[in-house]
């Protein structure tokens, strides 16, 4: 068996309890953040990103246990998690696009006609005007041809 000559602390070797503990904490925090995101955000795509964040937390925990037990099972499972996440993203994004084509919104509440009869209808309150667009865009030092600016440029920026 090859023995590494590189100095590494025994705590980082296989079966290290502090490493497992810390990595599990990180995985738990990522999972909880994803849970909060999927519960509370209303944009379908951000909800989906939160689900992916939960998967990342799971991956960290699985690899930590795999390292602790000196077993490849956890890492192999994470490879399959990656595969299934790719499939799930492809299929679900198609559904999101179809939903957007039907309602013109990425809002989960746009589909609230599917709710239970006993549940109250979600009513959006009036929002103050959006301050999303900053008053001034950052200025870059001029280089190349001066852009003509105007309509199309602003339209692109409004998408961000």
């Amino acid at each position, binding site marked *: 068996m090859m023995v590494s000559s590189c100095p590494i602390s025994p705590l980082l070797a296989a079966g290290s309890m502090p490493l497992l503990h810390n990595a599990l904490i990180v995985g738990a925090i990522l999972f*909880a953040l994803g849970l909060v995101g999927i519960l*509370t955000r209303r944009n379908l*795509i951000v909800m989906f990103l939160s689900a992916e964040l939960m998967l990342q937390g799971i*991956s960290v925990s699985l*690899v930590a246990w795999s390292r602790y037990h000196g077993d490849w099972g956890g*890492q192999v499972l994470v490879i399959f998690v990656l595969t299934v996440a790719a499939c799930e993203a492809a299929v679900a994004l198609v559904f999101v696009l179809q939903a957007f*084509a039907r309602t013109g919104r990425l809002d989960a509440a746009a589909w609230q006609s599917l709710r239970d009869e006993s549940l109250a209808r979600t009513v959006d309150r009036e929002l*103050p005007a959006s301050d999303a667009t900053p008053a001034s865009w950052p200025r870059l030092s001029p280089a190349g041809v001066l852009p003509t600016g105007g309509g199309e440029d602003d339209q692109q920026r409004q998408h961000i």
Partner: protein
Amino acid sequence: MIAAALPSLSPGVLLAAAVTSAAASLWLLLPRGSENTAARWLGMLLGAAALAGFIATGRRLGSLGEDAVFLTVSLVAVISGAATIVTRSPVYAAIWFAMALTGVAGVLLVLGAQFLGVATIVVYAGAILVMFLFVLMLAQPSGLAPYDRVSSEPLLSAVAGAVLLGLLTLSIGRLSAEPAACCAVPSRTAAVTEDPLRSTPLATDPMAAIDPLADDQIARLGSELFGRHLLSVEVAGLLLLVALIGAVAVVSRGEAALEADRGSLTERTGG
């Protein structure tokens, strides 16, 4: 670290305080319709306090360098993960998620999973995230939509997340400091060595199964994947194919149905 400076605080109290301030910080930072700069700063302060609490409950890995590396990558992952769910713009949320992926990849590298660290970047940030950004480009109304500026029940969700996180961290904190007896159980790598599918046995030492410094680490992962889990690899390939066909079918059928809907609508309104 901080726990040494505050000997009077028991780990349980520290954890409870950290989880509570994390929930409060999320509640303050989540989009709630009104843009309040003071609330946002307070939320960030509370979030920093929560992170300090979690760091204080963490255990020392050994040398200062190992601690610093792990702390850096996990802070990147956690802070970017929080920014993913609190930011208003979905495009920025996707970018923050890419940042969280780099942090997670760093954690995986520290844990000795080199292949997975690289695969996370390549597959997630390179492929899945680009798909998200494409969909956002196709389906994003101009400006910030009202549903991006209001979240549903932020208080209840933050409390639910805090309860889950508190339970998880409590049970993780109960893990004993002793190396478990399970590590002495012969690893499955030994069983793989006798696998008739493989002609050249690689590892026989179970403890060296996941040595982050081994030269042939990825080769061992590959032999495990294509040895014991060969059938699962085939099934995963089949799943990818089915997902591809399904996505194409849903798009083509859906557009036909959409056209039919529109046609019947114009007939009804026109007639």
